[in-house]
């Protein structure tokens, strides 16, 4: 397990390889669909992402008794929807770590290689576990504009776990798995179905 603590410097990030398990601590900012559209429209970013982490996440958050925020569930959302925007976002902001699920496209992978950034896969659906790793909510931006599920939340996390699935050297675990599965599908579909039904029905 490699430990990453905010701020994330380029050397540390470039030292990571696809397949490395990581534990992240310190500040991370959420941002998903509407945030990326906001960025693409040229509107001002609410926080500084240099050497920071962007988390594709729309959490369940409620007000607590003291007027602060309580995070109930905060797992990753699917990252592919941000493919059109992410290469520009990486180039413009100097963000070092993108956390999400499902991976991103070849253009994003190329931007990660050029600028020194990695993609960390969190486990989709594990909302309660990731909420437990949010030690505190330091603030929130664009809440009125986007609503709670799309706002930019400022999370201070402790031992937030994931796997480096796209590194800054051009390797993506998702591309490897997808290509292998397509090859296996092609060979599976070469077999004829009808014969097999007969044999399995007779078994």
């Amino acid at each position, binding site marked *: 397990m490699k430990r990453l603590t905010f701020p994330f410097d380029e050397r540390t990030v470039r030292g990571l390889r696809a397949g490395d398990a990581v534990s992240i601590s310190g500040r991370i900012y959420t941002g998903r669909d509407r945030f990326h559209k906001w960025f693409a429209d040229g509107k001002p970013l609410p926080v500084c992402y240099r050497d920071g982490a962007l988390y594709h996440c729309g959490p369940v958050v409620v007000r607590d008794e003291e007027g602060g925020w309580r995070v109930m569930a905060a797992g990753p959302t699917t990252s592919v929807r941000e493919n059109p925007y992410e290469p520009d976002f990486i180039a413009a902001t100097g963000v070092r770590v993108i956390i999400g699920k*499902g991976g991103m496209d070849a253009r994003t992978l190329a931007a990660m290689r050029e600028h020194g950034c990695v993609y960390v896969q969190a486990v*989709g659906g594990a*909302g309660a576990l990731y909420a437990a790793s949010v030690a505190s909510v330091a603030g929130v931006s664009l809440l009125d504009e986007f*609503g709670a599920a799309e706002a930019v939340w400022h999370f201070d996390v402790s031992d937030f776990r994931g*796997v480096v699935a796209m590194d800054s050297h051009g390797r993506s675990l998702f591309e490897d798995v*997808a290509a292998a599965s397509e090859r296996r599908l092609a060979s*599976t579909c070469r077999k004829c*179905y009808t014969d097999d039904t007969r044999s399995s029905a007779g078994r």
Partner: protein
Amino acid sequence: MSLTEKIVELIRETSSSLPDDVLRALRGALRRERAGSSASVVLGTILDNCALAAKRGVPLCQDTGMLVFFVHESLRRRVTPDLLGRAVALATERGYLRRNTIDPVSGKSFDDNCAEGVPAVRYCDRPGVTLIMKGGGSENMSRQYSLPDSSLGAGRDLEGVRRCLLDAVVRAQGYGCAPGVLGVCIGGDRAVGYEVAKEQLLRPLDASGVSGDQKLRALERRVLREANSLGIGPMGLGGGITLLGVRIAARPRVPASFFVTVAYMCWAARRRTMMP
């Protein structure tokens, strides 16, 4: 406890605890993946998450999804859409549901998760009140095929259906939060296809949920085995378990149409029934 509070409790339990058959399937998957592989780490994380959410009574996944209530006909007068809406609003206020309902035209959030047609309510002959919560990541991986489909080499027979289902699995990769479940409808019109495919997700993953039709049962088994040989694995990071189950139903079609509809459900297959 008032009926509204009972429905709030149904929502909380559905959001925080998976059904036993799904948990058993996930534990079985963990046993079959190699210890230390990323597949086993992902499944271990999933099971830890489920235990924590159930213990704390908090949503196990932040995407609390589109809520569909199936209510028995005889309860039509007691379990009204208004009452269900009030329960949903309360559950949202208490953090059991995300503010998850967006006006597609204005972009504004309906902060109490109530709007026209939301939550969805279907009066039917299923006993009691059943709730299913399906997140957007998996819904985005659902799809509908129209046979014949020459790009898949899929004709109008069960071999064609099989090709569609395996294609859906490969296209979904890990995006729909694998290991998932396929709810499938063969036939129907387009609307019936999606409705019936989603209803199949209410069938348990254990032996009690397999199709009563011998041909469909064989196809369910075959597609499950073949999908799990593709190597996609939990969250698409590779591994031997890509699906937890396949549940297929058939509905009549017209001569001109042959639809195959796939409702892709994530591993967080949240469903629960209560008797009011």
